[in-house]
């Protein structure tokens, strides 16, 4: 499959809108704070509305890239400016554009210092993230991938909590450490294949041996694994989440972590099908450890934000398990679960931010009985908590169920124990995570929201404001929509996922 030599106008426009917003904000005097905020709302909202046009393509019937195009960028090196969207990336692109205005609105009163720079970085970050999901040239992908680091680094480092510098530098260096390996892998592949265009490289016989392919797989995999993060590479995550401002946490959980899982689907699986199968059991084991470990460690936290941060380790374990089940159900479930995690965990961080703004603490011991004081907020929090817990009727369940269903019968996990397939054992262990999630989330809910009000300062808390409700409502709508009527969300990715799976070599069947 080769890409047409046309300019990807529509997607370029989409990428450019936040950049224009960035420029407008930069050129605005810093005293015009309201204008800056409204500019940020306007441009992120326009990006979202424009991105909805992406839904018009017939993803159901074809796995090809839509709105795609590639023009030479550095022709001598085979590097192109190539963009495109397909069933694998569509929902992540839309998730990114949806979260754009949401995080801007959520920052309205939370950020009071250096307002101009803050919103400038926020809108710029959106372009970087969209670029990651749209790029079809490996080099371009790498540029966007690195580009996301810069605004995020500033968001944590300037507007973060008390240990913000430490957290931001750690975040930066860890991602960097991984991406250098990825860069080497990308350069090797690009030079070997004579092109950096991903669709051209997929399925191309590069004449490299099995071993080389496995090393290249690892080059990509480590970069992505740190980003996801796959256990045990999660050490940077609690720092980054706890210190980041609310908007930073929402973006981090909602989009940046998905760049890692997306990388696996976009690069590792199609570029190195044999290596994917080779590493699938190992990745699945790490994923399962992450699911249980994350749930257990979350349970013991006293800081709400840290609890939610560790819950991501658990949730993304499910995503990795689904991806490396390497079958249609598992991968579709995993992609949907990426979106679900963005919605649910994004909403959790938003709501934790709301209460932090009121009380300036995230220590659960400082709360209790909040339901009486903030009934609407609490009811919504319950819904989001249940969604994160995987309650049927809400989005999280659909993703988890589909992933586990796929993993249960996966041929990718090879081994057998006492006649029971490894897939069954790993899925059973992962399903224990469902119990773990209920334990840590309900414990959190009880500590913060139930019981009588014991801390005097909590008695006068104001319930959720209209602005906060506006920022939350789109997420809630999707939480219900995906939970009750998920098939439209799956239909879009079916063709692309099928193409992905069919390209894998037939897997060995154990006797």
């Amino acid at each position, binding site marked *: 499959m080769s890409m047409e030599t046309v300019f990807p106008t529509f997607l370029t426009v989409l990428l450019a809108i936040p950049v224009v917003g960035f420029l407008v904000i930069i050129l605005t005097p810093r005293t015009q704070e309201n204008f800056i905020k409204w500019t940020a709302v306007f441009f992120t909202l326009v990006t979202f509305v424009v991105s909805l046009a992406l839904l018009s393509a017939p993803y159901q019937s074809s796995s090809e890239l839509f709105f795609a195009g590639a023009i030479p960028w550095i022709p*001598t090196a085979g590097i192109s400016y190539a963009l495109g969207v397909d069933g694998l990336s569509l929902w992540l692109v839309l998730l990114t554009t949806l979260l754009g205005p949401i995080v801007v609105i959520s920052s309205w009163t939370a950020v009071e210092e250096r307002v101009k720079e803050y919103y400038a970085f926020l809108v710029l970050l959106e372009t970087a993230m969209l670029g990651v999901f749209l790029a079809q040239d490996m080099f371009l992908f790498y540029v966007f991938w690195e580009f996301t680091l810069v605004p995020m680094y*500033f968001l944590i*480092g*300037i507007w973060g909590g008390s*240990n913000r*510098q430490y957290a931001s530098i750690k975040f*930066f*260096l860890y991602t960097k450490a991984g991406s*250098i390996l990825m*860069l080497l892998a990308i*350069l090797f592949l690009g*030079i070997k294949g004579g092109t950096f265009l991903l669709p051209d490289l997929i399925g191309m016989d590069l004449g490299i041996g099995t071993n080389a392919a496995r090393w290249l797989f690892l080059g990509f995999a480590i970069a992505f694994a740190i980003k996801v993060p796959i256990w045990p590479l999660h*050490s*940077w995550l*609690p*720092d980054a989440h706890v210190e980041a401002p609310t908007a930073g946490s929402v973006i981090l959980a909602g989009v940046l972590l998905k760049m890692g899982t997306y990388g696996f689907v976009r690069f590792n699986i199609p570029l190195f099908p044999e290596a994917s199968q080779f590493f699938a059991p190992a990745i699945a084991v790490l994923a399962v450890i992450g699911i249980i470990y994350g749930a*257990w*460690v979350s*349970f*013991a936290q006293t800081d709400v934000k840290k609890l939610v941060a*560790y819950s991501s380790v658990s949730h993304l374990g499910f995503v990795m398990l689904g991806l490396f089940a390497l*079958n*249609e159900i598992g991968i*579709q479930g995993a992609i949907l679960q990426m979106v679900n995690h963005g919605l649910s965990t994004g909403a959790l961080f938003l709501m934790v931010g709301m209460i932090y703004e009121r009380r300036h603490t995230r220590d659960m011991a400082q709360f209790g*009985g909040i339901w009486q004081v903030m009934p609407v907020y609490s009811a919504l929090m319950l819904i989001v908590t*249940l969604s994160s817990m995987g*309650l*049927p*009727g809400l989005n999280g369940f*659909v993703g988890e*169920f589909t992933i586990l*269903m796929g993993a*249960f019968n*996966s041929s990718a*996990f*090879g081994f*057998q124990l006492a*006649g029971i*397939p*490894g897939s069954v054992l790993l*899925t059973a262990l992962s399903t224990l995570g*469902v*119990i773990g999630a*209920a334990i840590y989330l*309900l414990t959190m809910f*009880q500590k913060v929201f*139930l*019981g*009588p009000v014991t801390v005097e300062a909590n008695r006068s808390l104001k319930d959720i404001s209209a602005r906060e409700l506006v920022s939350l409502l789109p997420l809630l709508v999707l939480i219900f929509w995906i939970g*009750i*009527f*998920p*098939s439209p969300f*799956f*239909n879009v990715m*079916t063709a692309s996922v099928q193409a992905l799976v069919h390209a894998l070599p037939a*897997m*060995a*069947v*154990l006797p």
Partner: protein
Amino acid sequence: MQGLFSLIPLIVIIPFAGVLINAFFGRLLMPAQSSKAPGVIASIIAGTAFAIAVLMLFALMSHPEGTEVPFLTLLNIEVGKHVLFVPWTFKVDTLSSVMMLVVTGVGTLIHIYAIGYMDYDVDVKAHEWGLSVADTLDLKRRRYSRFFTYLNLFLGSMLILVTGNNYLMMFVGWELVGLCSFLLIGFWYDDPHRQANGVFKGIENAAAAQKAFIANRVGDFGMLLAIFLIFWTFGSLEFGNVFARAECMKESSQAECLTITTTGLPRSDASEEPEDTVKPAAEAAEAESGHEGGEAGIFTTPIELGPGTLPLTAIVTAITLFLLLGATGKSAQIPLFVWLPDAMAGPTPVSALIHAATMVTAGVYMITRSNVLYHMAPFSADFVAYVGAATALVAATIAVAQFDIKKVLAYSTISQLGFMIAAVGLGGYIAGIFHLATHAFFKALLFKGSGSVIQGMERGMLGDFRGGHGHDEQHGHEGHDEHHAHVDPQDMRNMGGMLRKMPLTGWTYIIGALALAGIFPLAGFWSKDEILLDAFKENTVIYIVLSAAAVMTAFYMTRQIFMVFFGKPRTPAAEHASESPATMTAPLVVLASLSVLGGLMNLPFDGFHQLGYWLEHSVQYAHVGSFNITVALISTALAVGAILLGWLVYGRRPSTDPNAADPLAVAGPVFTFLNRKWYVDELYFAVFIQPYHAIGNYLANVVDWNFWHNFVHDSIIAEAFRAWAVILSKPIDQGVVDGAVNGIASLVNGTSREVRRTQTGYVRNYALLVVAGVVAIMVFLVVRFLIS
């Protein structure tokens, strides 16, 4: 008639509409303190759902084979030779109609009962907390509308559970009723009353709710694994397909059987197709004879699973055992029953509806629905029967030694659910469902009666404070003081002689107790007898265990009746107790009538057996029971004997002192052992809960934070990274990494303000350096590769 069937989605939609109405407008509908609009709306909605259930009954009378009504497609993912197709399709058949009737019928009565109960409840709380009139109104608006929102939500969820045509929709309902149970057990999460142990009552209620949810999640673990196995074995989750393919796979290969389709979309000739799945009675009887022989075969058909294959019998056994784990959660069986007694922390209408009559019977329904699978796995079926019988006996022994009026009923419920589970395990599906229905009547009656008694006690304690409302709160307070010290209104030792104070409640309660004890000719006699007869024929051990449990049942109910209703009032609260309002007593009378006449639905004589024949249309391996005068006489003799014994111990010389020891306390440690519920909670705490906490804390603090985060990452890796980076490109990265190290150093060494200030100022410089570094590395590498 298809026209009538097509109304079925409304039975779920209408309750959910009620949820939305009360959730969004409930408070607005309550302008004054006496407003009861949310309760009335919710009750009308429950009544409408009941009406739909009755319409389904009529429709089924002429089309007993039932039908399926598609509503939504949830999932449709192709994968290899399977398609994960999960519709939300309604299944109307005779089994689901029985469940619908019980759920909506008893549900409606409990909604009506709750109108008065929850209204009074807020008044009592407001009075106890000394709230002003405005605050009382606010509390009532919130609580009252919230309660009925949840109650309608429960009704809709329960109906999803029983009307789904596939395992996933059943699971969806299964989880949603669990959520409602959680919300309603913890309904009084805000109670600021400090317990003797220093814990707020509200926290205790919330903890009970959490316990219920988590115990059920353990069961869900089993349900989910069962669902995965079912799908990958039978290629579908729809009951019709699963069971037809399961039957097929006994003889044919998996691949061949996967082509069979009895349900699913589109349904062209709905009126004929069910013939495939619903075997006529003759065939069912034939199948039953195989069961009675006790040697249902071992099926070795290879089933592909993941990269391997397993024999059919192994898989079906696993499926049915995992389903059983789910049932032990929802239906409170050993080992997961511990949540149900705690669930009594919820308001009494909730205990009656959810934790006695409907939700907890979901496990019985699920096993009955899966009868084809259990019939294929005799090991699992036996296991189910033993679990049920053991639960029936253990819970009954605990009930004997409880003092809380609701706790007795809670353990009684667990015990009775054990009877039902044992019945379905033995293949007595009709007996199980029959007992499910009659138990719903008399246990709902008993719980509502207990609620009436509790409020009667509260009235006795607080006097008629409600008359004083609207004047001033002070007055109410005085009323409180001049009455009596607070006693636990649920403790039976504080009661006595309540029959005189609350005759309607008392007499209906006694009817319920006799029905539960299995006294001829009340409903419980017929249904329990049918279970005992099945056990008598199938398994002597289980028959003996269940008979022992039945003796205990009659005994503890007698104990309760005498402690509560007879003798002399032992406290002033009981002395001044008064009868409940008509909205509460009317449902009691209706349920009492049903408890008397309920047996008529399935008399074990030729020409009757209505429920049996009815269920045979949808339960393939159902067998219509018979009547055995020996079994009936034995069980009646045992029950009457136990009642006499109960009278001897508790009725002949009733206690007059609330602090007196229980007559059974002479049994010493045995009584304590039973009173402390076999120390199961303590055991679980030591074996599961405490280790879970300890390991969690260890993982989080020691492993993850001190070792992995602080030591490995912040010391070892950070240092190594710094060294490596310096070597790689000294001039560029120095600033960055030094910054990192400084940052860490300043964190670790307690912050030097100087360093910190400098850093804040230069943070942008660092970042710019980093960016420059990235670009430089990239350019360097690209150029080098391009040249080579």
